[in-house]
């Protein structure tokens, strides 16, 4: 069992990540307190998704140290994975499985009762297509299914990477409900988004540009910093 080092949800110190010679994230120091809802905004290629994937332990930093939920980014990554949920525009669904089969599989590998899958499908309005293969789903339906999968368990930290991309208004409200539900339960949410219409959900907004984080910024300043 890894040891918890800090009470912060996210505590990164001088984190960098390069892909080959190209730096994606440069010496970022970033702290998110438990229960906060932080929106990360910035232009394409700013390094927002890379930052989120480092926090999710999907990729490792090439320099710097950090803790997520008190666990070291490298030594404690299994503990971090047990407590976080990454929802990304890559929905990580199996095309040749049905919606229900996808959720049941996710439930088993997350150690959750598979019987919760049907209820989760109903909550995102996909119960009527439970037995249909994902291959025939629109991007919006896939994203709804990804949200349903995220609600199967109760992670301490939600990481949402462009969760509103490709969604209609009704589906966007589902993501909002996910965020609001997490806030109500005092969980931490970190959202990377271009969607300026959702920033009212944030307790704090930070801006990324060219791999660097401009934080903390008042909401008004952050909005003005958008290109």
């Amino acid at each position, binding site marked *: 069992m890894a040891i918890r080092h800090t009470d912060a949800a996210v505590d990164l110190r001088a984190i960098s990540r390069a892909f080959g010679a190209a730096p994606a994230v440069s010496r970022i120091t970033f702290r998110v307190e438990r229960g906060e809802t932080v929106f990360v905004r910035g232009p394409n290629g700013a390094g927002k998704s890379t930052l989120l994937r480092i926090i*999710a*332990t*999907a*990729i*490792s930093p090439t320099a710097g140290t950090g803790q997520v939920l008190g666990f070291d980014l490298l030594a404690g990554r*299994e503990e971090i*994975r*047990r407590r*976080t949920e*990454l929802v*990304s525009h*890559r*929905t*990580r*669904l*199996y*095309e*040749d*499985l049905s919606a229900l*089969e996808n959720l049941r*599989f*996710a439930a*088993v*590998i*997350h*150690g959750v009762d598979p019987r919760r899958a049907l209820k989760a499908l109903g909550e995102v309005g996909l119960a009527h297509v439970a037995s249909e*293969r994902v291959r025939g789903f629109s991007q919006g339906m*896939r994203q709804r299914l990804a949200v349903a999968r995220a609600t199967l368990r109760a992670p301490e930290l939600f990481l949402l990477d462009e969760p509103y991309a490709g969604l209609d208004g009704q589906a966007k409200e589902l993501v909002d409900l996910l965020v609001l539900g997490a806030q109500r339960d005092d969980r931490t949410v970190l959202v990377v988004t271009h969607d300026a219409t959702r920033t009212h959900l944030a307790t704090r907004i930070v801006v990324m540009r060219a791999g660097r984080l401009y934080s903390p910024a008042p909401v008004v300043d952050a909005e003005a910093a958008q290109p």
Partner: protein
Amino acid sequence: MTFALQALAVAAKDLRIEVRGRHALGVVLPFACTQLIAFGLSFGPDRSLVAQTAPALLWLAIFFASVLTFRGAYEAEGEDGALEGLLLAPVDKGAVFIGKAGAVIAQLLALEVAIVVLTGALFGVVMTGDLPRLVATLMLGTVGLASVGSLFGVLTEAARAREAVFPLLVLPLTTPVLIASIRATALVQAGHPADAASWLGLLAAFDSVFLLAGVTLFGHLLED
């Protein structure tokens, strides 16, 4: 218990995807048939020569067809970032490996039944030797191929390594399995099943090493 449940879930998921995608039926089996016919025709009408080389023909067809099966096993994981989902899930990565290897073994065994029948139908070669040892050879050879292919097949999803994985890693590592399986099958088929014991022992040792290596290393190969 959790390990077994998770491995079963992965295997069931892979087999379900395979059945629906019909990769084995539509790609792997026709490929194996074409190989068998090409090999058989290259020997001309001499039936005795075909009979002597039947174990090698059989295993070469299985060997090359297995490469396609390994690729198929990871295609669905790459479609929409599903492999990252497995990485980030709090699941024992050893269980994921065992599940994926189990699904590949099931597919290859089904393929082998078809190839054995085809070998008999095309060349008049019937596998009549010591049946339990013949089945043991097929099982052990299949587990050996599947364990290496499932372990290193995951690297085909890593963009930088994709093209080098099979020629540089999987094919050389599975060559001992191919040789031992051919020798064991030939000895059993020739009526010397006792002499096949050492080859079967070699296959069992190989399988144990690579299954253990898979359970231990798979998680590291999945990581960034």
